[in-house]
C-alpha cells in the first residue's frame, strides 16, 4: 500500500495547491516538497525492506466484456529502483526550485505542476499493465506541456510546449496501436500475464495472421507473416519510447523544451520523463525479444544514430542549456542502443547514473545562469570557477561523470553498454559508441573551458557570485551519487529483474571499482582512450579562446551542426505540405462544395421554382378561366382516354 501512498502524495499536494493554498506560496512549496520527500523515504523503505520477487496488486478499474483493465502496481526491482531515482532526484530538484523560482509570479502554479508531473511519472513507474502505463504516459506528456509552457507569455515557450506535446502525441499514436495489437493477439495487457502468455509460444501472433491477411487482401505475392507482426508490435510500442525519449526522428522537441525553467529541464528533460521511454522498453523487453522479431536491431540502430547526431549537434551549440540538452539526447541514444543490444540491464544502469549527474549538470547550469542574470550563452561567461566555487566543483564532477572518467558513475554504466556491444559482435555500434564518447568529452570540455575557465567575457560574468544554499546544497547532494553510483552495485540489483549480460556479483566496493577492467578490458580501454582524445582536442582548441575556432576549421559542417542538420525545417515543410494542405482542402470543400454549392444550391432552386410556378398567377381573369377549363379538359382526358388506374 505504501506504493499507492508514494503515488498519491504528489497528486494530493498538486490538488491542494491548485484548489486551496494557491495564495500561500511558501506553504504550497513546502507542501509539494514535503510530498516528494515523504515519497522518497517510503521508496527507500520499499527498496530496502521488500522482497526482491515481484509483488503485484490491482483494483478493477474497468471491465467490459473481454476488455479488463485494472489500476494496479507492479513492485519489482526495476520499479523500485526507478522509484528511488524519480523521488530522489526529484526531491533535490524540488528543493532547488524553491530558490531558483523565488519571487516568480506563479510560484505556486509551478509547484502544483511539478507535483502533478511527479505523480504521473510515478504512475508510469508503478503501472502493472500497458493501458495504465499509457494513461500516465499521456499525463506525463501534459504535465511537461504545462511546465515547458510555464512562462507562456514568451512566444518561444508557448510554441515549445505545443511542439513537445504534439511530437509526443505522434509517438503515442504508435504506442496505442501497439497496445491494441498486443491486446488483440494475446488477450491481455498485464505485464506478468503477457509474459506468461508469451513464454513457450513459438509464434504468439499467429492468431492474428489470418484476419490481417483478410484485411490487407492476402495475395499469393504477399501475406502477413507472424514474425512481421511480432516486429510490428515491437516497433509500434517503441514509437512511444521514441516520442518520450526523444529518439531520432522524434528528437526535435527536446532542445526547444529548454524554454522551461531550468529545474524543469533538470527533472523532466534530463532525469525522469525522457528516461520513461527507456524504462518502458525495459519493462516490455520480453515483447521485444520474441523469437523472430527484428524490432531490436531497429531499436539499436535508432539509438546509435540518435547518439551520434545529437553529439554532433552539441558540438556547435553556444547556449549552455542546449548543449546539455543535446548531450541528454545522445546519452538517451546510448540507453536505447543498449536495449537494442539485448542489454536492458546496462540501459537501466546508465539511466540511473545519468539521472544523477545530468540533473546535477542542469542544476549547476541553472545556478550559473542565475548568477549571470539569465545569460545562457557560454561565450558571454568565463572565469566563473573562483566566483562560484561550489557550483564549479560539482559541475566539474558532473562533467567527469558524463564523459565517463573512472571512477565516476558514468564510466561504469557507459562501459557496460560498450561491453555489451562488443559481446554482440556489433562492431559498428561499438565504434560508434566509442566515437560518441569522444565527442561527448569534447563538447563538455568545451563547455567547461569556455564557461568556467579563462576570464570573464561579459559584465554579468565578471560580477557573478555563488548562488544561495538552497540551490547549492542540492548540487552537493547530487554530487555524491555522481561519484559513487557506479560502484555500489546498482547493476547487480538491476540484474535481479532484467537479463543482464554480465551479472556482476556484488562483492564489495573495491572489486566493483575494477570490475569493468577485468571483465572486458577492451571496452573500458577504448572508452578511456576516447575520453583522453576528446579532452586533448578540446584543450588545444578552447583554452582561453575568445570565440569558437571550430567554424573556420570545419566550415560548413559546423554551420550544419549549429542548425541541427535542418531537421526542424524539414518537418515544418513536411507538415505544411501534408496536413496543412489537407486541412485547407477540407475547409475549402466544406465551405464551398458542401455548405455553399449543395445546401445553398438546394435553397436557391426551391425559391426559384417557387417564383417560376407563381408566374401562372398572372392576375388576368381570361388566363384563369382558360387554365381552369384546361384543367378540366386535362382531368377528363386523362381519366377517360388514359389507361384506367392500375393495381
Amino acid at each position, binding site marked *: 500500500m505504501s506504493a499507492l501512498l508514494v503515488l498519491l502524495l504528489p497528486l494530493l499536494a498538486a490538488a491542494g495547491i491548485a484548489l486551496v493554498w494557491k495564495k500561500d506560496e511558501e506553504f504550497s512549496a513546502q507542501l509539494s516538497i514535503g510530498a516528494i520527500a515523504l515519497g522518497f523515504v517510503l521508496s527507500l523503505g520499499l527498496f530496502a525492506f521488500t522482497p526482491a520477487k515481484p509483488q503485484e496488486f490491482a483494483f478493477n478499474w474497468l471491465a467490459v466484456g473481454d476488455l479488463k483493465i485494472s489500476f494496479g502496481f507492479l513492485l519489482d526491482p526495476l520499479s523500485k529502483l526507478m522509484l528511488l531515482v524519480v523521488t530522489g532526484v526529484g526531491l533535490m530538484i524540488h528543493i532547488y526550485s524553491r530558490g531558483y523560482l523565488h519571487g516568480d509570479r506563479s510560484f505556486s502554479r509551478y509547484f502544483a505542476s511539478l507535483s502533478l508531473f511527479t505523480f504521473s511519472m510515478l504512475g508510469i513507474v508503478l503501472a502493472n499493465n500497458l493501458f495504465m502505463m499509457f494513461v500516465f504516459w499521456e499525463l506525463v506528456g501534459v504535465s511537461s506541456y504545462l511546465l515547458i509552457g510555464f512562462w507562456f507569455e514568451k512566444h518561444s515557450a508557448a510554441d515549445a510546449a505545443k511542439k513537445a506535446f504534439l511530437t509526443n502525441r505522434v509517438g503515442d499514436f504508435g504506442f496505442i496501436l501497439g497496445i491494441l495489437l498486443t491486446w488483440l493477439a494475446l488477450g491481455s495487457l498485464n505485464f506478468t500475464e503477457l509474459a506468461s502468455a508469451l513464454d513457450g509460444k513459438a509464434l504468439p501472433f499467429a492468431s492474428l495472421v489470418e484476419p490481417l491477411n483478410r484485411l490487407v487482401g492476402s495475395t499469393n505475392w504477399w501475406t502477413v507473416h507472424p514474425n512481421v507482426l511480432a516486429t510490428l508490435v515491437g516497433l509500434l510500442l517503441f514509437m512511444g519510447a521514441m516520442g518520450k525519449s526523444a529518439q531520432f526522428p522524434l528528437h526535435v522537441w527536446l532542445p526547444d523544451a529548454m524554454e522551461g525553467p531550468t529545474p524543469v529541464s533538470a527533472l523532466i528533460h534530463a532525469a525522469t520523463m525522457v528516461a520513461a521511454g527507456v524504462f518502458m522498453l525495459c519493462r516490455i523487453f520480453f515483447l521485444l525479444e520474441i523469437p523472430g522479431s527484428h524490432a531490436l536491431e531497429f531499436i539499436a540502430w535508432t539509438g546509435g544514430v540518435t547518439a551520434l547526431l545529437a553529439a554532433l549537434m552539441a558540438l556547435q551549440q553556444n547556449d549552455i542549456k542546449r548543449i546539455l540538452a543535446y548531450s541528454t539526447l545522445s546519452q538517451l541514444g546510448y540507453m536505447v542502443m543498449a536495449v537494442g543490444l539485448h542489454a536492458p540491464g546496462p540501459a537501466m544502469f546508465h539511466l540511473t547514473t545519468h539521472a544523477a549527474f545530468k540533473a546535477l549538470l542542469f542544476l549547476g547550469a541553472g545556478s550559473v545562469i542565475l548568477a549571470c542574470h539569465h545569460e545562457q550563452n557560454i561565450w558571454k561567461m568565463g572565469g566563473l570557477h573562483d566566483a562560484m566555487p561550489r557550483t564549479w566543483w560539482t559541475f566539474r564532477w558532473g562533467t567527469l561523470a558524463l564523459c565517463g572518467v573512472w571512477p565516476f558513475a558514468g564510466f561504469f554504466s557507459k562501459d557496460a553498454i560498450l561491453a555489451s556491444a562488443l559481446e554482440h559482435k556489433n562492431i559498428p555500434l561499438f565504434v560508434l559508441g566509442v566515437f560518441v564518447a569522444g565527442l561527448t568529452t569534447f563538447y563538455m570540455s568545451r563547455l567547461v573551458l569556455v564557461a568556467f575557465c579563462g576570464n570573464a567575457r561579459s559584465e554579468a560574468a565578471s560580477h557573478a557570485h555563488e548562488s544561495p544554499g538552497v540551490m547549492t546544497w542540492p548540487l552537493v547532494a547530487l554530487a555524491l551519487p555522481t561519484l559513487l553510483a557506479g560502484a555500489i552495485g546498482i547493476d547487480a540489483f538491476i540484474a535481479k529483474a532484467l537479463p543482464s549480460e554480465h551479472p556482476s556479483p556484488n562483492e564489495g566496493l573495491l572489486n566493483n571499482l575494477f570490475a569493468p577492467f577485468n571483465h572486458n578490458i577492451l571496452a573500458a580501454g577504448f572508452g578511456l582512450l576516447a575520453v583522453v582524445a576528446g579532452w586533448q582536442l578540446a584543450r588545444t582548441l578552447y583554452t582561453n579562446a575568445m570565440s569558437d575556432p571550430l567554424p573556420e576549421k570545419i566550415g560548413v559542417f559546423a554551420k550544419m551542426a549549429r542548425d541541427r542538420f535542418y531537421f526542424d525545417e524539414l518537418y515544418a515543410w513536411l507538415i505544411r505540405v501534408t496536413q496543412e494542405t489537407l486541412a485547407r482542402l477540407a475547409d475549402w470543400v466544406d465551405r464551398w462544395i458542401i455548405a455553399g454549392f449543395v445546401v445553398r444550391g438546394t435553397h436557391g432552386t426551391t425559391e426559384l421554382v*417557387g417564383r417560376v*410556378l407563381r408566374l401562372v398567377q398572372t392576375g388576368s381573369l381570361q388566363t384563369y*378561366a382558360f387554365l381552369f377549363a*384546361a384543367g*378540366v379538359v386535362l*382531368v377528363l382526358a*386523362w381519366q377517360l382516354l388514359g389507361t*384506367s*388506374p392500375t393495381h
Partner: protein
Amino acid sequence: MNASLIVLELAVVCLGLILLAQDLYTPAKERRTLGYGAVLGVAVILLYSFFAFDGNETLYAFGNAYVLDGLALWFKRFFLLAALLVLIMAAEYSDRFEAGQSEFFALILFALAGMMFAASANDFTLLFVSLELITVTFYVLVSFLRRRVESLEAGVKYLILGALSSGFLVYGIALVFGVSGTLNFNELADKLTNHPALGHKSLLFTGLLLVFVGLGFKMAIVPFQIWAPDVYQGSPTPTTAFLSVGSKAAGVVLLMRLLGTAIPDLAFKLEKLLMTMAGLSILYGSLCAVPQRNLKRLLGYSSIASAGYLLLGFAVMNKSGSSAVLYYLAGYLFTALAAFSVIAIVVREAGAEDIDSLAGLAHRSPLLAATLTLAMVSLAGIPPLAGFFGKFLLLKAVVAEGIRWSAYYWLFAVAVAGVLVSLYYYFNVVRAIYWSKNVSDFKPISLSLPTKFALAICIVGMLWLGLYPGNALELAVEAVKSLKLV
C-alpha cells in the same frame, strides 16, 4: 319526412333575418353589438345541437335528399364553431365598412346555413343548391369593401370562376342524372351495385368528374386552385378566414359524401387522380408560398397546400383516411382562424398586409405574437400542436397504403417535401414577428374582450387537439362510420 331535422339550419337563417330586421332600429355606432348578438345566437345554436341530436342513427328528410347522421352533425358543429369565431372577427373588423355591417353578419350566417345544408346533402339537387347558397353569398362577402378595387376585383374573379365551376357542376349533374336516372346518392349507389355495367358508362364517369371539378374548385385543389390566392388577398380578412375554413370544409364534406355514399364502387377509379392532385396541390401551394410577402396571399397558397394534405386522406379511400381528414380539418379550423384573427388586427393597425407589418409584434402585443407563432408552428405540423397530429394521421394512413401500392411511398415523399418547404415560409413569418431589423412603432395593440376570447379558444383548441387527441379522434371515427368505406 320530418322537417324537425333542419331546425338548426332554420335557426341560423332566422337569426340572420332577425339581424337584418334589428339593423333598422340600431344606430350606426352600435351595429357592432349586433355582431356580438349574432355570436351569442350561434353559440346558443351550437350548444343546442349537442342536446338536440346525438347522430348515432341516420335520419332522412325530404325524400332522402337531406340526411342527418354523425358526419352531418360533426360538420354542422364544425361550421357553427367556425362561424362563431369568424363573427367575432367580423365584429372587430366591421368598423372598416362604412355601411352594411349587419348585412355582413347576416350574409355570414346565410353562408353558414348553406354550409350546414351541404353537410346534410344526400342528393345532387341539395348539393347544388347548398353549394350555390354558399358561393353566391360569398360573392358579396368577398367584394364587401366596395370602395377598395382589390375587393371588387377579387369579387369579380370569384364570381366568374365560381360561376364557371358551377356551370361544370350542373352539367356534370345533368349527365349523371341522364345516365343513372336519379339524383339521390343512395339510389345511385344502389343502381351502381345492382347494375355494375352502369359503372363503365363513360358518360356517367364524365358527369362525376365534372361534379368533382365543382367540388375541387371549392376546396381549391390543383388545377382548380387558380382563384384562391387572388381572392384570399382581395377580400376582407373575415371573409378570407371563412372562405379558407368554411367553404373548403363544405367542399370536403360534399366530396366525402359523393365518394363515400354515392359512388363507393366507382371511387377507386379516382384513386390515381386524387393522389396526383394531392401531390400537385401540396407542391404548388408550398413552393409558390416561398417567395410570397403578402400575408393573406401567403395563407392563400398555404391553404392550397392544406387542401392537398386533406386530399391525401381521400386518396387512401378508407375510414382511417377519412377520420384523419376530419381531424386535420378540426385542427385547421383553430389554426387558420387564429392566424386570420391576428392578421386582421395587424392589418388594421399597420394598414399594410406585408409580412414586414408584423415587425415588432412581439413587443406590441405578446398575445397576438404568441398566437400567430403557435398557428404557424401548427400549420407547419410541429408538435405539440394540432397540425402535427393531423399530418401525422394523414401520413400514417398514406404509408399504410404503401404496402398495397408503392406509389403511396412517393406520395408520402412529396408530402414530406412539402412539409419541409412549408417550414421555411412559416418560419419567415415567425422571424418577422420576433426579430425583424426595422421595427417602426412599439405602440401596444389593445384587444377587445371578445377577440381575446376568440384567440383563447383557438389556442386552447390547437393545444388540446395536439396534446390530447384521443377524444377528438374518437369523434372523428364515429363521424365517418356512416360512410361506405373499408
